[in-house]
């Protein structure tokens, strides 16, 4: 593992180069160890696909001391005897898959040479892992999408993607927590609120996520908006 300085108050820990589901629990294990042992110096810990960005308070610690401390935690956490729980929390999200809420569902199916039903099945039969959070509050980057329905981002992003929209970008999938611009291929909509100021983010890095297809009535009953 490489620990490198980024700017005057950050350390970036690199765990690998390739997207790999097995890496996420390991990154979170190190994240937890740093939070537990160096929490008094840390201001933010941002896990992503293969990295952990550790931001620290320069009023309390300098680079050298912080790097040595982080390196020690990393070395200890790299001990093969450490007990890493790779399962993560399982979250089920209902999704109404339909053209009226998924403007690109037809196009994704056509590109994959599958029927709409088969496309929905391919998307909803997998258990995804949250690799990273970002883009907007509560936005979870999940993977990996079945290669048959993996579809590149749209050339021209939409100015306004409705909240709850479920999208695909290459082998990643996500639910838009709020109305925002976006270039992902929209295939359905989830009635849940993925981010609120009271409960914050429904999803966190490391969670496992399954999508459960629901019909129009169930979507509306659950508070979904068309």
């Amino acid at each position, binding site marked *: 593992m490489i620990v490198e300085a980024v*700017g005057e108050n*950050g350390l970036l820990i690199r765990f690998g180069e390739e997207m790999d589901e097995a890496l996420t629990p390991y990154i979170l294990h190190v994240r937890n160890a740093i939070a537990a042992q160096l929490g008094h110096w840390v201001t933010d810990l941002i896990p992503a696909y293969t990295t952990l*960005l550790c931001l620290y308070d320069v009023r309390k610690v300098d680079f050298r001391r912080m790097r040595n401390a982080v390196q020690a935690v990393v070395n200890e956490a790299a001990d093969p005897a450490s007990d890493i729980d790779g399962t993560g929390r399982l979250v089920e999200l209902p999704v109404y898959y339909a053209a009226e809420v998924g403007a690109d569902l037809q196009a994704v199916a056509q590109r994959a040479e599958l029927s709409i039903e088969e496309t929905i099945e391919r998307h909803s039969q997998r258990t995804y892992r949250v690799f990273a959070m970002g883009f907007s509050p509560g936005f979870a980057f999940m993977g990996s999408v079945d290669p048959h329905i993996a579809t590149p981002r749209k050339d021209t992003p939409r100015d306004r993607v409705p909240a709850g929209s479920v999208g695909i970008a290459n082998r990643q999938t996500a639910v838009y927590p709020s109305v925002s611009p976006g270039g992902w291929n929209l295939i359905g909509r989830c009635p849940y609120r993925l981010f609120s100021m009271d409960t914050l983010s429904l999803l966190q890095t490391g969670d496992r996520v399954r999508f459960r297809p629901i019909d129009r009535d169930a979507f509306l009953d659950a508070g979904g908006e068309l």
Partner: protein
Amino acid sequence: MTTLRVTKPGLRATLQDEGRQHSQHLGLAPGGVADLHAWHWANKLLDNPPHGACVEVLLGQFEAIAEGSLSIAVTGASTQACINGEAVGNWQTHHLSKGDRLTLTETKSGLINYIAVSGGWQGDTFCNSRSMTPREGLAGFTVIGEDTTLTAAREAGHPKRFVPAHFIPDYTSPLVLRVVPSYQYHCFDNAAKAAFTQQLYAVSDRIDRMGYRLSGPALDVPNIQLLSEGIALGAVQVPADGQPIVLLNDRQTIGGYPKIGTVAALDCSKLSQRGPGTDVRFAFADLADIQGERMIFEAFFAQTGWTDDGKLIWR
């Protein structure tokens, strides 16, 4: 409680403190003051806690009415502050009585002013911060609007104080942004690194609290596929068009464009006071130098205090 009613927020006014901590992993931008220097001085003039929230006004043209007795300080950009139409100076404390009207004209140099009140502005917090991040549209944490009422922690009661002249910056002076090599620095070829530091860049008109897009000769961008990674304040992202973007407080928390390094936080503060068309240069710098300077800066504001006759001394 004493309040200030904003009647004209200008182009954009927000409440800013140090920003949110421990929430970037949820995708929340940290937010926080754009110019640490002017913000710290505004709080210092009023003996406020170092994390006190100030009003951050973009491009002046701000107007507000005191609904009680308030001690305030205005720092930052060159604007003409007036109380009931009478010109008063920036970088000093002022007293407002009930009904007094505070106005700021357009800025002449610099973009941002801070208005501090004794004890700091109060109000709701979200993730332990009062910082507003307009882009995220969080209810109550977007912008200060017309008729927003701001609440002061304390009534007036501070002596007249001035920031010593040599601490008042000239926002028109040439700006060199010091960059600590980091992230994908090693992936940029030597010609790109040389061009980055030898050429002049101009601040474009695509600037906001999220980031500053600069324009100049395009850099050769390394041909690498990156997975998104956490972004620190000041990260210099170079997208396919080769034009660098300095990422600031309301930045996205992760990103996948190549980054050549990270601008010193105090230089990000200086950049935030520069408008479109301003020339800037980049220079690579040593981490220890940048960090040492920042630590002294923070220690200065933490360790100094005012004497009874208005002098600032180390405690």
